[in-house]
């Protein structure tokens, strides 16, 4: 499989791979796991939130599945 990414997308992949200490392949595998995991929860009718560390304000995470 060939993955076609824009220069900007490729920059993001490289930056995240560097931050996480992963190769680009490992990063994309990790991204796929997270995407599948969140999609499965949303398909089950669950809601996925991110919480602000101090205000505890919650924002619903929207993923198009």
């Amino acid at each position, binding site marked *: 499989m060939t993955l076609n990414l824009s220069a900007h997308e490729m920059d993001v992949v490289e930056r995240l791979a560097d931050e996480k200490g*992963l190769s680009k392949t490992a990063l994309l*595998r*990790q991204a796929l796991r*997270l995407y599948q995991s969140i999609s499965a929860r949303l398909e089950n009718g669950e809601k996925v939130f991110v919480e602000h560390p101090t205000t505890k304000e919650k924002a619903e995470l929207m993923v198009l599945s």
Partner: protein
Amino acid sequence: MSDRLGTYLLKDRRTGKEVEATLWQSIDDRHVEDFAQKWKPIFETRKTELLKRGALTAEIAGEHNLQDSHWEWMRKVEQRRDGLAWASFAVEAEDVTQGLMFVRMDAFAREPSQRNKPIVDIDLVATAPWNRFRLVAEPQFKGIGRLLLAAAISLSVHEEFNGRIGLHALPQAESWYRDVCGMTDLGIDGTGMRYFEMTEAQAKAFVS
């Protein structure tokens, strides 16, 4: 389908001899059948005995090493079969399942030196009831927990997570993770359980 990862030696405390054990990735039908047919009856027998003496609280279940007896391994295997984030392991010896473990690979570290780096998070880990102190008079195999923890570290290395792992400990296992395994105790979190993490250096020390 399970892949055979290797064979290892476990000490049988009852005979003093070493017995060959096989480590499998992933949990197969025969492993959950062993849980249902061989582990669960021992748990239920002990629970019935304890209930005759009074209420079976979480504290009493912990004292008798029964805290995880309600875990539904078969249902978990069904639910997680297609999830890319999940991996599972089983240990067999003497043709019986001696240990089971589920881990997830979509978690991130909290320990300050490795915060937000990916880790292998141990979701469930259990040894067969006949290997447990306080549950049986003479526990059989030693080393199941260590072997499964090493499997989680090995997976972490394979996934480029450098051996980093994390877990929430049942109260009776806290000192083992902290004092024997050398994991960092990050305190009780929102789950009400104590959370531990192993750094790359701690993982190297554990497996060496």
